């Protein structure tokens, strides 16, 4: 699972039928300080997350298919939790509710 911030969503008219009615979110991987890490990716929403939310996303097909569809659906990543906060051993806290 990857710690991410939702930066928005993507819309497509022409798509694989398994994406009908699903929300596809743009996820920016972040570190525990909230700093961006690498390139954004897309994930199907399973927890009604929205823009600005800190979330956990999984980039593994089995998880994604279990949560969002059938076994034969080409869905590879899914948003599976909204993070409230990340508490580190050194006492630092990343507040998940911080919206940008």
């Amino acid at each position, binding site marked *: 699972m990857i710690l991410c911030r939702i*930066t*928005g*969503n*993507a*819309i*497509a*008219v*022409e*798509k*694989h039928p398994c*994406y009908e009615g699903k929300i*596809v979110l*743009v996820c*920016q991987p972040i570190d525990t300080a909230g700093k961006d890490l690498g*390139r*954004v*990716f*897309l*994930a*199907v929403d399973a927890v009604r997350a929205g*823009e600005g939310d800190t979330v956990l996303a999984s980039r*593994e*097909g089995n998880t*994604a*298919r279990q949560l969002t569809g059938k076994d*034969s*659906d*080409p*869905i*590879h*990543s899914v948003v599976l939790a909204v993070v409230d906060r990340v508490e580190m051993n050194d006492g630092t806290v990343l507040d998940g509710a911080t919206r*940008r």
Partner: protein
Amino acid sequence: MELARVVGTIVSEQKYTGLQGVKLLLVQPVDASLAPKGEPLVVADRFSAGIGQVVWWVGGREAALALTETFVPVDAAVVAIADDVYTGGKLARPEGKT
């Protein structure tokens, strides 16, 4: 799944039987503002995406599932042609769309 812009097509006559008729596209991954980021790659496509269009593609086992023939050696495939991408309250729209 990731966003990428179509930058070319691959022509290959001799390929695995299950891949006959499957279009192969060269795509350039993009960030949320649709600016190029990272290294180009080849993806299989059944949606007939054109050059310049922004697609979203899946990798891994799910790539083959996105095609009509699902037991094929493919590790990246297009699952949709992106129309709009909203990020940070802003709309990024692929070129050629109004």
